[in-house]
């Protein structure tokens, strides 16, 4: 159906109840003269009435509870994601730190000219440990000596400082990631 634009606009305004009395009279005259316009107007008012009377569709009972469950599920997924990320990052960083430690120790053994001494010491300690297996005091002594030796050695090694810094870094990352885990909140 083709309708002159002024009347099309007028029909739209009439639908919204925005016509002035003068426009209203002009519009009604147009409807009286044009059968097509009248048919269109009748159809529009019918649509208007049909839609205006249509009821609201309601969700099934328990919508709120289902929403709570869904929200909890979503949070759980987020937690799992962050937890996996935290675990993965921690594992990777630990592996990297361990690799660095092993590589540095191996380098120290071969490059410092004291290659035999640490291995001899280690062998001796292992032997001592095996021999003094039943003697707890001897074992504790051996471990103490080893710890002291390792500590003295470590204090002089920049690598150990690097590892300590790395360890602090890992801890910081862990703390950050754990903070990201949203706390369990129950919705009443």
């Amino acid at each position, binding site marked *: 159906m083709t309708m002159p634009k002024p009347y099309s606009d007028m029909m739209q305004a009439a639908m919204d109840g925005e016509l002035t009395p003068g426009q209203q009279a002009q519009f009604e005259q147009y409807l009286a003269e044009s059968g097509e316009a009248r048919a269109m107007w009748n159809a529009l008012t019918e649509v208007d009435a049909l839609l205006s009377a*249509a009821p609201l569709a309601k969700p099934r009972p328990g919508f709120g509870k289902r929403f709570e469950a869904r929200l909890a599920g979503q949070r759980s997924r987020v937690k799992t994601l962050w937890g996996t990320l935290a675990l993965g990052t921690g594992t990777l960083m630990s592996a990297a730190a361990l690799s660095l430690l092993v590589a540095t120790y191996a380098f120290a053994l071969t490059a410092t000219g004291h290659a035999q001494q640490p291995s001899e010491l280690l062998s001796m300690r292992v032997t001592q440990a095996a021999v003094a297996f039943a003697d707890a005091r001897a074992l504790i002594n051996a471990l103490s000596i080893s710890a002291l030796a390792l500590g003295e050695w470590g204090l002089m090694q920049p690598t150990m400082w690097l590892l300590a810094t790395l360890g602090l870094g890992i801890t910081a990352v862990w703390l950050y990631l754990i903070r990201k885990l949203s706390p369990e909140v129950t919705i009443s």
Partner: protein
Amino acid sequence: MNETELIAHARAGDDASFTRLVETYQTVVFNLCYRMLGDPAEAEDAAQETFLRAYSQLHRYDPNRPFKTWLLSIASHHCIDRLRKRRLTWLSLDESLEPHPALHEPSPGPEEASTRREQSAAIAAMLGRLAPDDRGMVVMRYWYDLSYEEIAGATGATVSAVKSRLHRARANLAAMLASRPEKPRQPARTVVTLG
């Protein structure tokens, strides 16, 4: 606690307050989703998703805007996205649609219930043939009585575009109604004042 307080509490992390908002607006949001998507199960999913999005975006909500309009905006955009994704198969007016169970009210007699079902099916079928954007505007206008300005705010369109689209949508609906072999009977609750 009024709505403003509920929103403020929800923004501060009080989930119970947000749940109360969900309960308040569940029908409003669900109805929009149902009218736009035409399927109760999908409408439920879309309505739930709307509230989840609202929950996560609550910090962006402007308290100067009506909360209902903001929710409808989220729901409308979400439904339009869904419709575009599924490349809606336009429903034929001749198809018999099963209306949502909530529309089956037990109180009316068999004849009235049948009439309502017929009307619901007709409305669903006709809405289904409108473009998604137009459909959302029609629902906001007729079911929630939003002004053109509010619809423009919710959809991101200009007021003149809203007027134009609504007029086009009404004309399309009128043409569909006229082409039906059996028109649905005029509903009992007719409160339209024209002219």
